[in-house]
């Protein structure tokens, strides 16, 4: 177990170093950093001096290492565009994205899993078939289209919900939350639904197919043959066996939800990191782009780590030391 965690941590570090290398390469190959920092009328000599002070004349390896160390410390440099520390900008934007993403994934889980279980158990039921048809829409409609349609209906026509922004927020230190004000919650509804819909249908279909698979297994038949109640069989025995793939996919999806919040954030003008990234791309604001890249990679790595640990919690076959812990009485 311990060795396993250590190994996974080392792998994670390796992944992060690779991502940092790519981010670092952005600086060197997308435009000249000096040009991005200074005005047109700066003399050649000044440029040279800036080059020297920024360490751009050092060897690539030294520069890369410096970049890694700075990044690890959370120092992403200054935005070319806004002339502010990227770290500050990220910290301002992160709460909006994280709140949106986490609420979305919770929404997707808490609706997707029960719907998946239901459609798995009532394979031929009328409601199950309706759920399946709706899920097809969720899976095939592009996110931005769903967002725009929601805006059109609930924002423009019915005027129930705001069409952009995050509403009022309350600050706790560096964290700002929209979850505590009525306008913040209202503003969250449409973006969260938009972002959750795809994940929800994905989770639902996954849980359904896993349920169908598990319900065919011998141990489920044997559980029924022992007279266990339907609840114990379906939820105690079957559902738990569908968890491993659900955890995997949900974990990966949480990563992509954060990453692909970009589209939703653009549609709803949500003041999150995704929109900041889009703006940075438009402005060729390399430090912001690089920082975003590293941060998203970090999210993925951390989530993957958590997913692996959850496997351990769920599946005793992975615990090498085995046994000893599962008593009931």
């Amino acid at each position, binding site marked *: 177990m311990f060795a396993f965690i250590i190994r996974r941590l080392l792998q994670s570090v390796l992944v992060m170093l690779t991502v940092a290398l790519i981010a670092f390469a952005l600086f060197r190959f997308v435009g000249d950093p000096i040009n991005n920092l200074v005005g047109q009328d700066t003399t050649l000599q000044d440029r040279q001096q800036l080059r020297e002070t920024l360490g751009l004349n050092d060897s690539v390896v030294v520069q890369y290492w410096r970049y890694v160390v700075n990044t690890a410390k959370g120092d992403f440099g200054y935005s070319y565009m806004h002339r502010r520390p990227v770290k500050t900008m990220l910290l301002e934007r992160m709460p909006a994205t994280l709140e949106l993403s986490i609420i979305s994934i919770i929404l997707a889980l808490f609706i997707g899993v029960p719907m998946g279980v239901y459609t798995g158990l009532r394979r031929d039921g009328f409601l199950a078939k309706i759920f399946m048809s709706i899920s097809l829409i969720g899976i095939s409609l592009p996110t931005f289209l769903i967002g725009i349609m929601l805006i059109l209906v609930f924002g423009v026509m019915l005027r129930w919900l705001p069409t952009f922004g995050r509403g009022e927020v309350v600050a706790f230190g560096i964290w700002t939350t929209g979850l505590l004000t009525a306008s913040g919650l209202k503003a969250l509804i449409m973006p969260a639904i938009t972002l959750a819909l795809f994940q929800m249908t994905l989770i639902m279909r996954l849980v359904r197919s896993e349920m169908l698979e598990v319900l065919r*297994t*011998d*141990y489920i*038949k*044997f*559980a*029924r*043959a*022992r*007279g*266990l*109640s*339907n609840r*114990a069989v379906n939820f*105690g*025995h079957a559902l*738990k*066996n569908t968890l491993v793939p659900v955890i995997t996919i949900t974990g990966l999806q949480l990563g992509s939800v954060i990453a692909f919040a970009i589209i939703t954030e653009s549609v709803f003008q949500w003041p999150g990191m995704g929109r900041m990234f889009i703006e940075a791309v438009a402005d060729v604001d390399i430090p912001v782009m690089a920082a975003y890249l590293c941060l998203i990679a970090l999210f993925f790595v951390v989530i993957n780590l958590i997913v692996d640990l959850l496997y351990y919690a*769920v*599946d*005793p*076959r992975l615990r090498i030391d*085995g*046994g*000893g*812990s*599962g*008593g*009931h*009485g």
Partner: protein
Amino acid sequence: MSVRNLRIEFPTRRGTLVAVDDISFDISPGEILGVVGESGAGKSLTGAAIIGLLEPPGRIAQGEILLEGRRIDNLPYEQLRRIRGRQIGAIFQDPLTSLNPLYSISRQLVETIQTHLPLNDREARTRALALLDEVGIPSAGERIDHYPHQFSGGMRQRVVIALALCAEPRLIIADEPTTALDVSIQAQIISLLKGLCHEHGTAVMLVTHDMGVIAEAADRVAVMYSGRIAEIGPVQEVIRTAKHPYTHGLMGSIPLIGHHVKKLTQIDGAMPRLQEIPAGCPFNPRCEKVMDCCRVERPNLQTVQKSRVACHLFDGADGEARAGE
């Protein structure tokens, strides 16, 4: 336990398939009834029908199942569920897949015990331990909290037997309990099953296609072919003086238990598929002693000595004469 004229059908788009047709038999307390027949003969379906776990679209189209004189085939699901495990236990073929891999043995035992018996956690665990001891799990006290993957195939089948015995059922349906096991372990499991059932007076329906297992364990044996009973009678009589030509074929050689040399393949041809069961006796295309009437008229079970046989060879005195030829 009695099965009366049981008929199991599968409605399909191209008409109804009859998988089990007009089967009747009894099992008395403490008795082991062996059920043999080729794969697809309808053995498992019969077992599933008895515990009320036929999978749709399969359904009991006709007949009844009685447990201690009470009809159980038409009970609502919830009542039947209380009978499963409590009065009828089941053991399946593959011990490697019969146990939920995510739960410890103790959890699965305690859950089953508490489903049927009013015991608290501690009492249920004590009972679980006793059961594991009884089925011969060494150092059960340590093993009880282990997970299925930490047991060997034979040990897992013992756990499965313990699970089936949780609430001391009156009848156990064992569907090929040794087929998936190592030959060296098969005999142990069979004698364990036999011993336990004699002690507790539990009746057993022992489904297998291994005549060796039948010879070893069963008191009576039913030979099934194409969803029907070809012959049923005391095990010694069926083995020594098989009457139905199909049974003859099966008995061609009885391997010792555990010696899987010859199986049921000495008879030429294969059992017909459900859609292609011929008129008359379903065995007639493969039968050495086939007569004209076998292709037309379906034979009914009739008493011959201590057995009952479905074969035209035994129709009246005439039949006896021909059988003697």
